[in-house]
């Protein structure tokens, strides 16, 4: 499978999500077997599932296939402070137009308010940068719908790339003769649909190729609850220290995210697993403590040096 595994066989220890690259020696499929060259060595497979997101068409081309083009569609977001939540009991959408459903105001599971997204087509496959003028437009649009938001501080900014194709629907095709399943062009509904799509693709494998037998002892990585509606780790008696004060992230939560079968591979992974440094101070209070905890334990080390003398 080109992408990241959903279930890991017992005993494997994956370091973050490293993008596998599919490359060939000119003939990627010989005698019914696909040969995939990756950064971690070659892989031979009877069946390939291409779910490479923003690189879906590139992977398709490596296999000598075609039929669609991915053009990333960037979405920028502004995250407002948790204090904005008191004005936003529910999701608010403007009346949609033919082109877009517009700027959405949305309370998040973590207690913030989200304003966005934009929909900007671009050629770059990886550049998820934000842009000041666009962010100001988002805030103005949000404030137009709910004026009280105008006084609320901005906590964070981010952007993501949706792997948009020229088709409006998902591309999910099984090519029985070629031993190839394409799962591509899945935009913003993909996160919601991911588990259902996964099951559907598993059914396609069984239907067109061979039935899948369940992994004997699957390791399903568990992530601590980060949402506000259920108890958080900091509410546990005997919790120990809180490292990230804005998001109430405990030292235990950070330690857990750095260990286990699927540990955080970089600071971004650690942030997404724990929310550390993602609150209103954006690391003013905890960035140093978080990176010091993570020292020597990330696949990609941070550019932090230890001072020779006692600080």
């Amino acid at each position, binding site marked *: 499978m080109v992408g990241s595994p959903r279930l890991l066989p017992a005993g494997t220890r994956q370091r973050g999500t490293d993008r596998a690259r599919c490359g060939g020696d000119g003939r990627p499929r010989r005698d019914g077997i696909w040969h995939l060259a990756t950064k971690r060595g070659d892989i031979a497979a009877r069946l390939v599932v291409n779910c490479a997101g923003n690189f879906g068409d590139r992977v398709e081309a490596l296999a000598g296939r075609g039929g669609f083009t991915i053009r990333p569609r960037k979405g920028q977001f502004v*995250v407002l*402070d*948790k*204090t904005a939540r*008191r004005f936003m009991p529910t999701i608010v959408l403007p009346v949609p137009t033919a082109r877009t459903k517009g700027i959405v105001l949305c309370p998040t599971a973590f207690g913030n308010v989200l304003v966005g997204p934009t929909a900007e087509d671009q050629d770059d496959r*990886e*550049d*998820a*940068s*934000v*842009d*000041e003028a666009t*962010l*100001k437009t988002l805030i103005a649009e949000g404030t137009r719908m709910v004026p009280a938001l105008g*006084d609320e*501080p*901005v*906590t*964070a*900014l*981010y952007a993501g790339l949706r792997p948009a194709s020229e088709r409006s629907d998902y591309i999910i095709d099984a090519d029985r003769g070629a031993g190839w399943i394409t799962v591509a062009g899945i935009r913003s509904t993909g996160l919601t649909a991911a588990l259902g799509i996964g099951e559907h693709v598993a059914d396609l494998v069984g239907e067109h190729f061979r039935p899948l037998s369940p992994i004997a002892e699957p390791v399903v990585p568990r992530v601590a609850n980060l949402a506000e509606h259920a108890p958080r780790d*900091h*509410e*546990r*008696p*005997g*919790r*120990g*220290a*809180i490292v990230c*004060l804005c998001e*109430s992230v405990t030292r235990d939560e950070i330690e857990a995210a750095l260990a286990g079968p699927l540990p955080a591979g*970089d*600071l971004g992974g650690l942030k997404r697993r724990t929310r550390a440094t993602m609150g*209103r*101070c*954006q*690391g*003013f*209070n905890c*960035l*140093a*403590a978080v*990176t*010091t905890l993570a020292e020597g334990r990330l696949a*990609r080390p*941070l*550019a*932090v*040096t*230890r*001072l020779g003398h*006692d*600080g």
Partner: protein
Amino acid sequence: MTAEAVDLAIVGAGPAGLSAAREAVRSGVKRVVVLEREAEAGGTVRHCGHTGFGMLDLKRLATGPRYAALLRELSRHLDIRTGHQVTAIEQGPSLAVSTPEGPRRIAARAVLVATGIREAPRAARLVSGGRPFGILTTGALQRFVYLNGRLPCRRPIVVGSELVAFSSILTLRHGGVRPLAILAEGRRAEAMAPVPQLARLLYGVPVLRRARPLRIEGREIVTGLTIEREGHRETLDCDAVVFTGRWVPEASLLRAHDVGIDPATGGPRVDARLCTSDPAIYAAGNVRFGVRASGRCALEGRAAGRQIAADLAREAPHWRTKR
């Protein structure tokens, strides 16, 4: 959950909170608790490694950490609870507190919010670009150097020319690094400020005046900063950007409680008694509107302690029956 009842709950054990607690106890308030979310009392001065603290309130000159230690020493008789994070102020007033023993509730006759300030991070400044490692504030940098003995950069650019920009430069020097440049932004007061001049004269840091950060370059770590300077754009190589100043009151507890906030400062509106729009909730120190000398905050904390003691005495039942 049964609530613990106190006379005065102080949120934040920095110079203002500790000074207020001492003064309130001295003025006769019986049950005073200070709630501090960090593992150690003292506040932001704990990681200001340079000197210049203590003159106004303690009449002696000390480094930030030493000043914090002096404040702790003077407060040894107080009920200071570290690792206690107030998560909400509710009607009553009643405080929801996350403690190492689990969630607790504290009902107080009066609450003093002394939660201080922090610098506006990159996000709040809406600076364009990516989100690589190396986007810092002075506070984050100081904690790397003074509390963790670590340096997160070698070739940083410092943005801003408030006094704290100088703290950034001193902190970097402590780690053996000279910033590539200091960006004095376009706002008039800042562009004329003496801090960049001093940085240039004392430490040879190049000053770029009337320059504005436009875009952060880099995906994994910072590789550059694109700036706009007198109508021109250029990209400077660097491995970190330290955003300094533009202080923001840490007033979210008050904001969420719908206490009146001054939109110009982001801090609570208070009257001459340091009382907010909720008659049982007071505010003192930098949380009121932005950066002032720590000694100034300590003196204001003392004033708040005396004021709250007087107000509580007035409304005490035995006082009313005497009247």
